[in-house]
Each structure stands twice: as C-alpha cells, then as structure tokens.
C-alpha cells in the first residue's frame, strides 16, 4: 500500500498547489516540498522491507485495474527502483527549491505540473504491469511539456513540441510492442495478461521477438538520448527552465536506461543479445558525438546537455554487455550523473539568472566576481568528467571493467572517449570562470539557499565517489532479478 501512497501524495500535492498558487504562491511551494518530503519519508524505510520469493523485492501492491484486458495495478519495488525513486524525490525537492526565485508567474500551475511529472516518473520506476508502466510513461510527458512550453526560454515552443513528438512517437512503438507481447502470451497460454512476470515466461522467438524488442529498444534509446535519436535533447534541455532541465537530465533520461534494463533485456533476451553489437557501437558513437559537440558549444547550457549524451553512451554500453558488474556500474552512473548534472544545471540556471546570458563568450572571469558559484561549478564539471574520488568515476569504471571482460575493443574505444571529455570539461571551466571578465558585474554570489543545495549535492557526489559500497549492496540483489539471462560469450 505504501507504494500507492508514493504515487498519490505527489499527485494530490500538485492538485492542491494549483489553486493555492494563485493567492498564496509561497504556500504552494511549501505544500509541494512537504509532499515530496513525506514521500521520501515513506520511501526510505521501504529499503528494509522484504517480499516473499521469487526474486529480491522490497515491497509490492496488486489490484485489478482493467480486467477486460488482464491489466492490473501491479506495483513492485526492488533495490534499483528504490534508488531511482529516492533520486527522483530528492532531485524533485531540489527543483522546487531552485524555482523559488526563478518562477514568478503561474506558480501554482508550474508546481502542479512538476509534481505530476514526478509522480509519473515514480510510477514508471515501480509499475510492473506493462500497460500500467506505459500509462505512467505517457503520463510524465504532458506536464513536462507544459513546464517547457510555458516557462522555458526563447525557443520554448519549438523545443517543447520536439520533445513531445519524439517521446510520444516512440512511445507508440512501446505500446505496439507491449500489445504484441501480450497477445503472443495469450496465444501461448490462453490468458491475456500484461503482467511483467507472466510475460517473462513466454519470451518471443525469432524475427517476431526481434521486432518486439526493437520497438522497445528504439523508444528507450530515444528517451536515453543515444546517438542518432538524441536530436530532441540539446534543444529541450537548453530551453527548459532550470527545474525542468534538472528533472529532464537527472530523472527522465534515467527512465530510458531503466526500461532497457528492466524490460528489453529480460523480456526478449535472445533478441537483446542479437542487437547488442549494434547497441555497443551506438554507445561508443554517443560518447564521442556528445563529447565533440559539447566541445564546440558556446552556450553553457547546451554544452552540459551534450555531455549528457556522452554519458548516456556509457549507460548504453553497460546495459548491453549483460554482466552484473557493468549493470552495477549502470545503476551507479545513473545516480551519480543525476546528482552531478542536476547540480550543473542549477549552476547554469543561476548564472543565467545573474548575467542574463548562457553564452560562454560573454562570461569569463567569473571567479573574481562570483567565487562560490565558480568553485562549485568547477567541482561539478570535474565530477561529471569522471575525476577519481567522485561519483561518476566509480560508475564509469565499473562499466568499463564489465565491458572489458566481454568486449575489450568496445571498452578501449569507450575509454578513449574520456579524453575528449577532459577537453570539453577543462575548456568549459576555462571559458566560464577564468580569464578576463567580459564586463564589470555587480551580482550577488550564492546565498544561503544556493550554498546549502550545492553543499548537499557536493557531499553526495563525494560520498558516492569514496564509499560506493552501500549503493552497490542495494543494487546487487536487485540485479539478480534481471540475471535470469545467462551471460553469453557471443559478444567476443
């Protein structure tokens, strides 16, 4: 039942914030923050729950939903879902705090959309009825579309429509694949069901299985923004308001990786192995493409958006080498990237708030005027680059280590991708924070609110970097849920 509350509380919080926002904008913000805090309070203790075997699950809920189609309201949470849900809730709270000063118009509606999008994302992470999963998958898009289209920057309309078309269009592929899976199951067993665990029993064979898998694969890679279907990402992340960028980059991208791990790999194991070579090289291409384009950007926000594409390349590789070590790395990198990129978007947002520009050519020399902002910025750029001792390094290292065991060439190619990463990171630090200032600036540095946010995120990324074991302990049993698939040597 607590899983249901996880969904209901943000939905209600959003519904309450909308009318409140008109007369009492401050109250609306507090209500949303409190709702997410309450959710976090419900979510954290779930880590110690257990469900009866089979599998390592922490909590579950099941009720009939649309019996006519054998669809049920089936929620289940394992360690991976738990981590991603906690990440969603925490970064959700950050995105509310970061909007405290930035969003002045339509406060209620903004927060309602934010909360509904978060609720949809949590649903994606815990739904284990395929149709329910798809329902949440679609549900999280509409509010995010509003956030971009109404509160975004100059080209928001274009960006919002692009975002929606890509994700919604690829979503229809998911729907077709899900329906095909369910009807295939019905032909095999005589029962129409969308239950994840039932569908696991009837993996689709041959060419049919490949097409089903391809539908899911394309949709999840679009969401993950892997090359060459990343086109929506740079513009969307750049044009969204800060809170929107944080949620998009830190949370929504992760749903794509989650889908690949949770659904593509176990539901169509044969076909997933079949596409693995393609997926691995797409991953390598993403790493280089994202890095090279990030290097060429003069828009600070766009630069960070492109680095996301590069990092998601590692995720794509990690998923498709089919070993627990790499999967550990994938989940770890999802968390670390969520924290570091979230922090970077908050920093860019505050730069824009102060300088009214995102153009790196018009920054420069910020360290003299805004020392706190600049030092945090440097720290998080280095973290994103994968500096040892910080969170992202652990994730990338585990992925490369896991990849080397089965596909050494890919591992080497991906590791070479770390060189352009260092280039774009250092050039960004150089252009933004060092050198002569473009103009005299008399802007206030980070205040208490921003410092507190930054310190928390920095502490998190350091903790992830120096003591990753607790996270790995949580993911290990969860990944056993997926590991019904034997590791094959076909990738060598």
């Amino acid at each position, binding site marked *: 039942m607590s899983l249901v509350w996880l969904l209901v509380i943000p939905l209600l919080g959003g519904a309450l914030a909308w009318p409140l926002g008109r007369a009492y904008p401050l109250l609306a913000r507090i209500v949303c923050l409190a709702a997410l805090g309450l959710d976090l309070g419900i979510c954290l203790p779930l880590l110690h729950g257990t469900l009866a075997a089979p599998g390592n699950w922490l909590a579950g809920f099941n009720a*009939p*939903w*649309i*019996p*006519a*189609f054998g669809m049920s309201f089936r929620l289940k949470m394992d360690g991976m879902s738990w981590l991603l849900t906690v990440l969603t809730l925490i970064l959700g709270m950050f995105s509310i705090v970061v909007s405290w000063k930035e969003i002045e118009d*339509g406060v209620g*509606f903004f927060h309602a959309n934010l909360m509904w999008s978060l609720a949809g994302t949590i649903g994606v992470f815990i739904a284990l009825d395929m*149709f329910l999963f798809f*329902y949440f998958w*679609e*549900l999280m*898009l*509409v509010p995010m*579309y*509003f956030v971009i*289209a*109404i509160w975004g920057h100059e080209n928001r*309309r274009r960006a*919002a*429509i692009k975002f*929606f*078309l890509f994700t*919604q*269009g690829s979503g*229809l*592929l998911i*729907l*077709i694949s899900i*329906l*095909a899976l369910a*009807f295939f199951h019905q032909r095999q067993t005589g029962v129409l069901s969308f239950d994840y665990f039932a569908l696991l029993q009837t993996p689709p064979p041959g060419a049919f299985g490949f097409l089903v898998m391809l539908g899911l694969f394309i949709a999840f890679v679009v969401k993950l923004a892997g090359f060459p279907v990343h086109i929506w990402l740079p513009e969307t992340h750049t044009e969204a308001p800060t809170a929107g960028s944080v949620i998009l980059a830190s949370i929504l991208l992760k749903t794509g990786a989650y889908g690949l791990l949770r659904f593509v790999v176990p539901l169509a194991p044969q076909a997933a192995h079949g596409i693995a070579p393609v997926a691995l090289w797409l991953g390598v291409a993403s790493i280089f493409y994202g890095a090279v384009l990030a290097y060429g950007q003069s828009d600070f926000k766009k630069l960070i958006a492109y680095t996301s594409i590069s990092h998601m390349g590692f995720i794509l590789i990690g998923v498709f080498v089919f070993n627990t070590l790499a999967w550990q790395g994938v989940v770890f990198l999802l968390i670390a990237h969520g924290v570091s990129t979230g922090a970077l978007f908050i920093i860019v947002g505050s730069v824009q708030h102060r300088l009214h520009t995102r153009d790196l050519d018009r920054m420069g020399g910020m360290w003299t005027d805004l020392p706190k902002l600049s030092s945090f910025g440097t720290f998080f750029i280095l973290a994103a680059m994968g500096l040892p001792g910080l969170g992202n390094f652990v994730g990338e290292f585990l992925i490369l280590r896991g990849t080397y065991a089965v596909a050494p060439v890919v591992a080497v190619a991906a590791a070479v991708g770390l060189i352009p990463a260092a280039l774009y990171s250092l050039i960004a630090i150089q252009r933004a924070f060092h050198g002569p200032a473009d103009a005299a600036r008399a802007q206030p540095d980070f205040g208490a609110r921003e410092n507190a946010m930054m310190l928390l995120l920095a502490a998190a990324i350091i903790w992830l970097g120096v003591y990753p074991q607790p996270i790995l302990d949580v993911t290990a049993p969860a990944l056993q849920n997926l590991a019904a698939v034997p590791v094959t040597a076909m990738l060598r």
Partner: protein
Amino acid sequence: MIFWSAAPLLVLAGAVAVLLAAIAIRRSFFWSSAIAGAGLLGALAVIPSALQARGAAGLFVFDAASLGFAGLILAASLVILVIAYPYWRGCTKVPREEFPLLLLLATLGACALAGANNFITLFLGLETMTLAMIGMIAYPRYRGQAEEAGLKYLILSGMSSGFVLFGIGLIELGCGSLDFGRALAGGAGTPMMVAGLAMLGVGAGFKLSVVPFHFWVPDVYAGAPAPGGAYVAVVAKIAVLAVLLRVMALPGAGFSAGAVHAATAVAILSMLIGNLLALMQDNLKRVLGYSSIAHLGYLLVAILAEGAIAHVAVLFYLVTYAITMAGAFGVVAVLSDADAPRDMDRIADLRGMFWTRPGLAAVMTLMLLSLAGIPPAIGFIAKMYIMAAGIHTDLWVLIGTMVASSVIGLFYYLNIIIVMSLKPEAAGVVAGLSLPGRVTMAAVGFAVVGFGVAPQPLIALLRSVFG
C-alpha cells in the same frame, strides 16, 4: 411488448408534438429547452425497460444493439442541448425556440435510424435527421457563413441521399425485398446487389465524412453555430454507424474481399489526409472537422479488425469520440455568443486562456489530449483498444498508418494547447461563464479523466448492453 420496446421512439415523438404545441401557445426559450430536455431524459429513462421487452416489428428492430446506440444518441443529444442553452440564451436576432425543436426532431430521426430494420425506415430516419440538421446548421441566418454551410450541407446531403435511394432501388430490384435480413440473405453476390451496396456505401461515406467524401466537413463545421456543429459531428455519425454496424452483423453481410481493400484504402487515406489538412488550419472548428475525418479513419481500423476485442473497441471509441467532440465544441460554444457575427472559433481567440479561464482551459486541454490519445484522458484507452484490435488480427499496415498519423496529429493538438498557454494580449474584462455551461464542461472533463483512469466500468457497461 413491442409497444414497450419502442417506448424511446414514442416518447421522443410525443415530446416533439408537445414542444410544437408549446411554441404555438407561448414562445419561451427556457420552456422550449426544458421540454426538449425532458423528452430526451424521458426517452433515456425508458431504455432499460425497453431493453427488458425487446422486439422486432418488421420495420424496426429494438434489440440490445439498437437500443444501446439509441441511448448513446440520446445522451449525446442531451449534452449538446445543455451546451446550446447558454449559447442561444442571449440571442435577439432570431427567435430561438425552434432550435431545441430541431434538435429533438433530429434525435428522433437518429434513433429511428439506429433501430431501422428496413430500407424504408432507414431512409425515413436518415432524412428526418438530415433535414432537421440543415435547420440547425443555418439557424443563425444573419451569419453569411452559416447560410453558406446550410446550403452546402443541403446540396451535398441531397446528393448522398440520392445515392442511398438509388442503391435501395437496385437492391429491391435485385432481391425483391426491402427488409435488411431478407435482402442480404436473398441476393448476396448478384451484380444488382453489389451495385446497390456500393451506392449505399457512397452515401454512408458522405454522412461519415471519410476520404474521399469529406470535402463538405470543414466548411459545414466552421459555418454552423457551435452546438449545431457539435450535433453534426457527433450524433449524426453515431446514428449512421449504428445502422451500419447492425447491418454488418447480420448473416450474409460482412465485407467481401474487394470491400475490405476499399475500406482499408479509405481508412488509410482518412487517417493521413484528415490529420495532414488539420495542420494547416487556423480555425478551431475546421481543425475539429479534419480531426473527425481522421478519427473516423481510426474507427474503420477497428471495424475492419473483426473479433470480440474489435467489437468492443468500436463501441468504446465511439463513446470516446462522442464525449470528446461534444466537449471540444462545447468549449467553443460556452465562449461564444450567438449574436456575434462569428463564433469564438479561431485558434487565436483561445490565446491566454490558461491565465484568464484556467478551468475551461484545463477542460479544453483534456479534450485535446483525448483526441490525441494521451493519458490520463479516455482517448488514450480508446486508441489502445483499437491498436489491440488491429494487432490481434495482424492489420500491421493499418496500425503503422495509425501510429504515423497520430504523431502528425500531435502537432496541431499541441499547437492549440500552446496558444492557450501564451500570455493574453490585452488584459480585458473576462465575462463569467453561465452556470449550466460550467457544470456541463466540468462534467465532460470529469468523464474524460474518470473513464481514462478507470475504463473498466465503461467497458463492462458496453459489454453488458451490446452483448
């Protein structure tokens, strides 16, 4: 027993007579609307007992299917009547009392069509409905656009009625009977019969406005006053589909191989052309017109996919379409004023609605999401239903077209939502909405979300009524 099963039709006919007499005694728009509403409600109320009785009387058949469709028609007409009331209330340029009368008359025709069991009653119902609708379309005769739309509909529906009559004649000649069952069983496959059915198909194509018989739609929808447009978009299509689906379920009916190819082509063209042309419109009612063409294409997919899932899918989609279209036209209706030279139907007129009328904007957004097939709106479940039906019977080409056309459709639905979210241009005074308008819009909005989140009750209802 036959008497009871025909009760909905009798109640409607009685209400028409009472309304005529009432207008003759004293003109009052309120009473006129109230009587029409009471007639529709009364007819709805006797449907359960009619379902108990059931019966066929040669000319009409009152079985679960026809009564179920009659219920849907009555409910949709009621919603449109409630929308029409605030729309016409302030009108001073024409007498308003006949609008509810025309609506009631058209509904009588639609219900007769839904229950027709003979080509005579089919034509009778069709013409009663069509003629009354022409009156509804051209009702604000001080608007040139409305007059033009009425005339256009008159000529084109006259032509399609001609096709229908010619087809009926050929069928009668071919098999010597006007009864659906006997005609279909008697003359299956003869050239006379094929030609006759093809003519009927053309007539149905006009009424359903599928490509290539769709040219009248945008002009008529845009020219008609919003409630009249809603009626043409919703009730007329339900009635024609009702008789079509019932006939197709008869023994000896069903599609021949050639007809399947033709219907597939019509479905594909309707989906694509409807959504592509909608992209270029700046008038909301025209957008809804083109969108309805595409939606009829989706419906054809479900009709072509035979089987139990497809059967419910058609009904579910029809209910969804009815609620959503009525809601979308309803938003235009509550914003508009009948005395004005035109309705508030340009997309630009909706600018800033999220800031000036957040509630109505939310309802409109839900309608658009439902048309686009995005949760939490009911249209999402409806689209899933059709896809399930299509995939179940391996109609991959149609499903592929449906996906492509849905993505095209997103463009213009989203565009309208974006326009609503822009800052309003001038901070003018916003007139309050009337109470019935508010209540209806809120009810439609709740229905769209409620059935979108929990569709099972509706599915169960459709299954129990239509068997």
